[in-house]
Structure formats: C-alpha cells, structure tokens
C-alpha cells in the first residue's frame, strides 16, 4: 500500500521544444522505474519563471498524480535531482486524485492533441519587465517633479532679481526728488540761523 502524491515538475524548455512526448517520457519512466503507479500526467503550463533557474527564464510545468510505494520517495527524489532535464520538482501527499484531472489528462493523451512548442527564452521574464517599467516610470515622475520644482524656483529667483534691479534703478530718482523737499531752502535756513544766533525769538521781541 502506498501513498498518492501530486508531483509538479519543471522541465527544461529545450527538451520540450525537441519533443514533448520524449520530455514526458523522461518523467514517467523515472516514476515507473521506482514502481510508481501513474494515475494522471499532463502539461500544466508553460510560462516565464519568476526568477531564473539554471539560466532558464521559461520552463514547462508537468503535473502528475501517482501512487508510490512506501520507502521509494527518497530514491525518486535522488533520481530527479540527477536528471538535467528536470529543473525543479515538488511532491505533495494528497488524499485522492481530483476528478477534473483525469479528464484533462485523457484529453492530452489523445493522439489528435498537439502541444505547442514553447517560445524561445527572452532576455528576462515579462514579470520583471513590468516591474522595471513601473519603477522607471516612478523614477521619471520624481525626476519631472524635481525639474518642475527647480524651474519654479529659478523663475522665482529671476523675478525677485528683476524686482530688486528695478527697485535699485528707481531709488536714485526718488531720492533726487525727495532730497530738495527735505532740504530747507537757503533763505529759510538763513533766517533760522540768524534767529538762533541772536537768541531772540519773534514773540519775545
């Protein structure tokens, strides 16, 4: 009596691109070698990885439900570790095989069903490109705001400089106008000086 496992295995896209049936056989043969009873086996997805694994930016996810006799788990894990086509794997003990899995797997086993070849590895996964674009747009927004603030500050400085220049140009004229008013007339000045020098005020006399 064994345990039912759900196995998710990441396969190298170069192997899948060459032939999907062979790539599938790599996993199924390894499972059967360790006396596993395969219930379902199908391609779950082909997608960009969230982070590169062994230099691969994309990989094919292979989902399988199988029953493994007790004590064979470690040997199977060791065999998959040594297989270069397997990038990563995850085995989970489950109670039963989901109902929809058998339908999906049987649909793939149909001879008419064809699996599209995965696309070539791009420079980076799209998830990272989106994050980079978001970060770059945020940086650009901050830069624009800083530039706008600098431009506004420069305008304010220029306006204040113009004001100070216009004030400095206007000041001598005003001083020239105001100076004769403040200064006493020569005749009045003379009268005051004579009055003070005599010591007699007009009222006293």
């Amino acid at each position, binding site marked *: 009596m064994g345990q039912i496992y759900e196995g998710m295995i990441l396969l190298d896209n170069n192997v899948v691109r060459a032939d999907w049936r062979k790539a599938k056989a790599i996993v199924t043969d390894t499972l059967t070698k360790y006396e596993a009873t395969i219930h379902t086996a199908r391609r779950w997805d082909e997608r960009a990885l969230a982070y590169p694994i062994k230099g691969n930016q994309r990989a094919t996810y292979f989902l399988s439900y199988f029953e493994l006799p007790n004590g064979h788990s470690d040997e199977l894990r060791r065999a998959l570790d040594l297989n270069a086509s397997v990038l990563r794997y995850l085995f989970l003990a489950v109670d039963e095989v989901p109902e929809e899995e058998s339908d999906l797997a049987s649909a793939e086993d149909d001879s008419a069903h064809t699996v599209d070849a995965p696309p070539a590895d791009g420079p980076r996964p799209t*998830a990272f490109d989106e994050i980079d674009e978001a970060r770059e747009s945020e940086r650009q927004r901050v830069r624009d705001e800083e530039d706008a603030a600098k431009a506004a500050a420069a305008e304010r400085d220029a306006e204040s400089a113009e004001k100070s220049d216009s004030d400095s140009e206007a000041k001598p004229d005003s001083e020239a106008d105001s100076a004769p008013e403040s200064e006493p007339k020569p005749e009045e000045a003379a009268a005051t000086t004579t009055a003070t020098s005599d010591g007699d005020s007009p009222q006293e006399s």
Partner: protein
Amino acid sequence: MPIKKTLPIGSNNCDDPKINYKDLEYLGKFLTPQGQIVSRRRSNFCTQCQKELKQAIKRARHLALLPFVA
C-alpha cells in the same frame, strides 16, 4: 502622528475555496508590491488559514511561480 489604517483584503476569507499553490491569481492578492506575505490583520484569515496561505505561497515561490522579492 496619525496611524495609517489599512483595510483587510476581502471579508470572511476563511469561507473561500481551499488555498492552493497553483491558484496564483488568488495568492497574488495576499502579497505586497514587494512580494511579502501580508499579515493576518490584513488578510482577515484565521490562524489555520493564514498558515495554509503561507505554505501555499512558499510552495509557489519554490516552483518560481511567485517571486521571493518583486
């Protein structure tokens, strides 16, 4: 300084279908923009469901379905 209060993601999340590491759209709701798992206060999960969520996200990260750091 006023404390910024964040609203929980959904309500009665424990009634949702079972958490699975393959359901990336659902798991993505409980990650911050930096890729961190949100707290229980934010996720509105009970203790057991929060543990299941943590386990599912870690499994998805192991399989490169979700990033460790975004």
